[in-house]
């Protein structure tokens, strides 16, 4: 039978990445405390972390945003996979791999850049983040930016809560926000 063996398939996927031919390399990171993640990386860093991903839709969107050469390839994702493992094991407090948010609209990018400065184990509020982004009245818009964060966990939108101390919401579901904040010791 002339079918594509697993090893040939993996060899091609590794070669495609090694030759620098991919706009986005992605893979699944399975069995994390927050479920299976679909993660995508470009030459510039991590561009996507998705909960409960509908793979087909994710690929279409990655192709639209970053270019059509989107391919599953394990090796380019290994570094992020390792950093996530360490994070979930409580052994890592920040990520070395840069987020790639070049395709994010200007306002969102400004907010996400401020979000990146909220430390492990800390929390901030939507209003405070809006103020730090130079738009003090935009707390609600900041909520929307958090909801559309392309790289949750690495850009820690789980650390943003309501002014009254309520957790408010989370793109991946409130249970995950609680889990991440507990992991970091920000809440009991």
């Amino acid at each position, binding site marked *: 039978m002339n079918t594509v063996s697993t090893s040939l398939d993996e060899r091609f996927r590794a070669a495609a990445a090694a030759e620098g031919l991919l706009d986005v390399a992605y893979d699944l990171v399975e069995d994390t405390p927050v479920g299976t993640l679909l993660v995508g990386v470009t030459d510039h860093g991590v561009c996507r972390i998705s909960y409960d991903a509908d793979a087909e839709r994710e690929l279409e969107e990655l192709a639209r945003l970053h270019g059509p050469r*989107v391919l599953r390839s394990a090796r380019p994702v290994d570094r992020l996979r390792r950093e996530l493992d360490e994070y979930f094991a409580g052994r890592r407090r920040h990520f070395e791999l840069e987020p790639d948010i070049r395709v994010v609209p200007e306002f969102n990018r400004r907010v996400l850049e401020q979000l990146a400065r909220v430390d492990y184990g800390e929390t901030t509020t939507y209003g405070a983040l809006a103020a730090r982004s130079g738009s003090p009245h935009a707390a609600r818009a900041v909520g929307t930016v958090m909801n559309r964060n392309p790289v949750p966990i690495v850009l820690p939108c789980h650390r943003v809560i309501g002014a009254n101390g309520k957790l408010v919401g989370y793109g991946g579901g409130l249970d995950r926000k609680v889990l991440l904040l507990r992991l970091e010791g920000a809440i009991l």
Partner: protein
Amino acid sequence: MAVAIPPFETFYERHKDEVMAFLGRRLGRERAEDAFQETFLRALRAYDRLEHGEHLRAWALTIASRIVLDDFRRRRRPTGEMPELATRDERPAFEELAPLTDGLPHKERAAVVLRYGYGLSYDEIGAALGSTGSAARQAASAGVRRLRKEHA
């Protein structure tokens, strides 16, 4: 409206088994593996320059058939012998065609091989070659005329 170009992953998953089967029949398992990787690397190098997502199957098979022909030519040169084909398949015509068409101009060769060796429609071949169905038909018949003359 033009068909959108799918993410490469989708293209690859959709056509990899057929490309591998095609290459396996032409080259045998071992050489087919290298040719498989080369086919999809070539496709990937050209992928962001595609203008639409139509006829991608024909496009993939065209790349694969070029690699088969390159492989034949490379192996033929030292001895001048015809390549030994590892397996027979349901389209033996191709196995005779592929080495015979080596001397044809590029477009005619591709058109003849895809039409008579692989049974693609002229529209598919035209799209794969970046021209039209009727241009593909002309290229194929010009190629056949030339073959008849050469092998008369």
